[in-house]
């Protein structure tokens, strides 16, 4: 039981980090950025490329992981800003469907671009976390899992601080409420949207590096399923709501963990996406989505 909760929390941390970017982007420009899962994949590959370039393999050092994490976050953040500039900004006044289709196109471009460069085979991530575990309170906990949860929680705290306590955060919330009014009040809308893409993408990139270090295997399609799962998490939590994305991610991780324990591993995705359908049907605003004032 405790083990199931712990397993769910680990998976949920990944979902939450990716769901945040989904939710932030949706909150501010009402775009479902389906390329977001692939940013997660890019994060892992940026880490892989950098480490391989320095000839590093089979390392277990946490400081090294943190350096790579920061580097990947900056890189994927800039890529996210670039994607918004090139693919989404020119379409900002187009019908939403056009932007959505563009997002899917961006997703394929990233996936198969990476395949062209790194090849179609799965690669082993060069930095791994020591993961032999200890038994505690009926759970088996490993050092790598603790590192993972701490990093994820830390990133989310920083994000909450930025959104709640800084001028930039206030501008984001203002645009989410009413972009035109915000612009009239002197908010530089383009710059704020770029910032949102930077933050969202760097969180996904961080999740990608952490997944590489924790699971050890990366491939060019690794972002596809997690993109859909993160979307599900964002919907469950209330899309557009930051805390909803965090809550939704952890909740989805738990649901999957319990679902596969009860019905068997092959039912895990059925279980997860059945919840997406249930929420879209009965509570499309999600758990926290009703608090419109908090939206961003």
């Amino acid at each position, binding site marked *: 039981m405790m083990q199931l909760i712990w397993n769910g929390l680990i998976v949920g941390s990944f979902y939450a980090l990716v769901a945040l970017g989904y939710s932030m982007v949706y909150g501010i420009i009402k775009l479902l950025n389906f390329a977001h899962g692939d940013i997660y994949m890019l994060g892992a590959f940026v880490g892989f490329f950098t480490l391989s370039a320095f000839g590093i393999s089979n390392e277990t050092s946490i400081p090294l992981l943190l350096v790579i994490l920061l580097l990947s976050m900056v890189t994927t953040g800039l890529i996210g800003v670039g994607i918004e500039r090139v693919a989404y900004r020119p379409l900002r006044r187009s019908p939403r469907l056009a932007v959505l289709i563009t997002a899917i196109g961006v997703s394929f471009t990233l996936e198969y671009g990476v395949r062209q460069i790194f090849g179609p085979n799965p690669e082993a991530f060069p930095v791994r976390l020591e993961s032999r575990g200890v038994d505690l309170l009926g759970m088996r906990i490993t050092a790598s899992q603790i590192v993972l949860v701490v990093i994820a929680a830390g990133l989310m705290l920083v994000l909450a601080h930025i959104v709640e306590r800084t001028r930039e955060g206030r501008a984001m919330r203002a645009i989410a409420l009413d972009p035109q009014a915000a612009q009239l009040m002197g908010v530089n809308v383009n710059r704020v949207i770029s910032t949102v893409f930077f933050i969202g993408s760097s969180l996904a990139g961080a999740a990608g590096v952490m997944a590489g270090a924790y*699971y050890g295997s990366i491939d060019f399609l690794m972002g596809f399923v997690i993109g859909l799962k993160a979307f599900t998490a964002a919907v469950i939590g209330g899309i557009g709501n930051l805390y909803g994305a965090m809550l939704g991610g952890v909740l989805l991780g738990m649901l999957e*963990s319990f679902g596969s324990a009860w019905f068997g591993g092959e039912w895990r995705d059925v279980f997860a996406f059945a919840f997406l359908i249930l929420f879209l049907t009965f509570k499309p605003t999600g758990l926290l989505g009703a608090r419109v004032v908090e939206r961003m």
Partner: protein
Amino acid sequence: MAAGVLALTAGCSGGVAGGGSEESEDGPIKLGMLAPFSGSESAFGAYMQNGAQLAVDEINADGGVLGRDLELVVEDDACDATTAVAGANKLVTEGIVGSVGGYCSGATLPTLPIFDEAGVPMVIPAANSNELVDQGLPGVFLINGTGDQQAAAAVQYAEKIGATNVAVIDDATSYSADLAQAFTTQAEEAGLSVVFEATVTPGENDYSAVATQLVGAQPALVYWTGYYQEGGLIVRQATDAGYTGAFMVADGSVDAKFSEIAGAGYTENVVGTFTQTPDMIEGADEWIADYEELAGDPPGPYSTQAYDAVRVMAQAIEDAGSTEFEEVVAALEGLEDFDTFAGPLTFTENHTLSGGGFVIVAVDPATSNFVLEDDLQG
């Protein structure tokens, strides 16, 4: 026949039943190969293509078949049913008279009726699900050991190490589920108890739920019947969760990437069931050198089977004296003790090998590669 020739030269794919796949009497004899050149299994496609090409080159250097040259035509199946069907149709329109491809059983299965309808006999080098021959199509021959034979090797090894409680995990693909089923049946027949059976979804990263359940079931040996990416993750996550028994993986997981993904120190308990590869076979050095000269890389899994598939097909066409479907099939059925890497080949009534040729391999920590551990002889 004449209609068939016309249809083919016009590049039409439909309804060319019962032979008539020759484009002309003096052009090359075309053999088609579907193999994965993209997707998660793409490494195997190159191994197979190069093995087959080596056989084609050797046969052509010796004067070809029926006085004509052989030509290998490859198409990507991406280990995906839809892509494979498109590839099979393309090969048929290109006028192949024999198919020597097929790696993923799930992708190979839907191509069988296409080749059958076009009158193309199939010698399948790698795919080995029992479903492939269970359909009873006359032109399907398997030269890799089947799931049943592989499961028999797995059960034999489990008995040998004294594992009475065993578990099996599959990835829901045709090959994997089939092998898991065969393993369960044979293990129970042998008096072992199967204490845990699970199915996972391939392409995910987190298998902690299955790992936790596996630890709870406490088997002495668990058999993973899927491919290497998930296999490496499951071994690592189950070990982290506290599993201490033996791990056995099927041939789809026997790859150096498996140990890289699992990570250093996680493969001590890992063995695999596998058909022999050139480096395990004595006296294959010269063959390996030839292969490296052609491909630039050392041979890998299924290079020898693809090589043998071409040779078996060529021999049958030569014996038949024609490329007509019925005659080639009869010649394939008539092959007796044909010399291959897996030993003398004679097809059974089901068109499978009489002997499976499966051995047990284990990870060499120095190179991450799987090397021969136990040939299961005695």
